[in-house]
């Protein structure tokens, strides 16, 4: 009978807890939507400034999230530009060149890297910035470039691992096709293996982009500020959406500002959720076909 009661309990509890989780997510998302939808619109981003003027840099936006949005975009662009080539190259090395023992060793390093808390990476970036500041140039300090580098470092393991796994999963028949036709190892990688593994690689990159867009801890230590406008150079401070949200959460001064905070939440959440969902669906779809070109 005990057994039966335990089984029953598991059944009931499972359903209850699942319902609870769903309810929590529902309340969470519902709360955000209710609070952010009224404020959604062009003014959320550009405030009172005509959008074109803002985009061309002719006018500055003080009561919109334009600068934060632009900062996040630049940040994501910068960090992906750094992390993707390095990560894909390292992934290719691990999958196609490395000996089993190197694979195991580097694999451990990358797992370790993936597990380091982002604030520790931020701290690392910050100390590097200070080091450079003291040793080399007084012009260097925490800035967009340092942030992008630290973020690149944060997402590197995702890119490496997804590239490696995607390549290793290419079926043996396809792997042998090009070599049997006289392809060198590099030709095989460039013309057959990478295109074939592209879906997996791209979905890894998507996850990495999502991570860059949402991470707050790293940039908090490496150059994000409350007010900066659109950054003019990689060596300047910048604003970013996640930090804007953090900042607003504790220091909003009026309801309008708070409602911009909710708006920023919605935009950031939609962006990240979209990227993650996209990554999952790309993994399954066959987009690589359309990209497969010699």
């Amino acid at each position, binding site marked *: 009978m005990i057994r039966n009661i335990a089984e029953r309990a598991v059944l009931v509890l499972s359903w209850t807890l699942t319902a609870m989780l769903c309810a929590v997510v529902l309340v969470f998302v519902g709360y955000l939507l209710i609070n952010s939808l009224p404020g959604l619109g062009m003014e959320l981003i550009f405030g009172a400034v005509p959008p074109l003027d803002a985009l061309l840099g002719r006018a500055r936006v003080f009561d919109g999230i334009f600068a934060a949005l632009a900062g996040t975009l630049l940040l994501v662009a910068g960090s992906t530009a750094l992390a993707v080539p390095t990560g894909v190259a390292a992934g290719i090395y691990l999958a196609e060149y490395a*000996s*089993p023992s190197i694979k195991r060793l580097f694999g451990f390093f990358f797992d370790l890297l993936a597990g380091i808390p982002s604030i520790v990476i931020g701290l690392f970036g910050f100390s590097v910035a200070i080091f450079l500041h003291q040793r080399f140039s007084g012009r260097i300090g925490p800035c967009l470039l340092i942030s992008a580098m630290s973020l690149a470092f944060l997402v590197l393991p995702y890119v490496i691992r997804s590239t490696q796994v995607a390549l290793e999963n290419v079926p043996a*028949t*396809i792997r*042998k*096709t*090009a*070599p*049997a*036709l*006289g*392809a*060198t*190892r590099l*030709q095989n990688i460039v*013309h*057959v293996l990478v295109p*074939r593994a592209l879906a997996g690689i791209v979905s890894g990159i998507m996850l990495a982009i999502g991570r860059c867009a949402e991470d707050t801890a790293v940039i908090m230590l490496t150059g994000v500020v409350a007010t900066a406008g659109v950054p003019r150079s990689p060596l300047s401070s910048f604003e970013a959406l996640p930090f804007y949200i953090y900042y607003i959460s504790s220091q909003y001064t009026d309801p309008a500002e708070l409602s911009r905070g909710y708006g920023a939440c919605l935009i950031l959440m939609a962006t990240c959720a979209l990227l993650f969902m996209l990554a999952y669906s790309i993994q399954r779809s066959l987009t*690589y*076909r359309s990209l*497969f*070109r*010699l």
Partner: protein
Amino acid sequence: MQPRDKIIVEGVSFSYGQNPVLKDIRVTFAEHAVTAVMGPSGQGKSTFLGLFNRLWDDVPGARMEGDIRIRLGGRWLSPFSADLPLPLLRRKVGMIFQEPNPLPMSIARNMAFPLKLAGLKDKAVIEEKIRTALEQAFLWEEVKDRLEKSALDLSGGQKQRLCIARALILEPEVLLCDEPTSSLDTKAAGVIEELLIQLKKQCTIVTVSHNPQQVGRIADRILMLHDGRMTPMAPGAVEYHA
């Protein structure tokens, strides 16, 4: 005319890590002949074929002893000598697999693929070669109007002929076939068999097959692989071993 030797295998042993697959194999292959290799599954037939174009080259732990020589362009070369770069070897020793493996691109691009890998640029030459190779593979008539269509939409037999044509475009002197018809229906397989017999004129063919009837139809010589050892067999004897 007494057939000349094309490939000489001298005391070759092969193992994957601790697992010995081939043991002290000695055998020669005549030029312009179809030699069939038979034997139970997992005995190392595919491994044996792969010796000639070093396909196991980047399998970790794989180890070979002994020597192989192939007469390519009139010179006796060893696939393992440093002065024969791997891609060059593989262009001269073509290979066809059990599952037809066209790449996911158009028919024309599939055909041009090995030429581009070899660095050929001239469009007119490429087109000419594509046509010749497809004709040799009995495929030209069927695909000439759809060269730009995806190769993945061809039937199984057509795909396999495409793969053969793709191998032929490099004008290989040796053609290795690893159970080239086993994923095809009888009719499509018949076309491939016919094709292999025709191709004898140009190449030396080594094929792996499980089908004794087929081997009886196409092979000039039959080798049995068992327990890592290779024994020649009279063509007439094969039916009894099916």
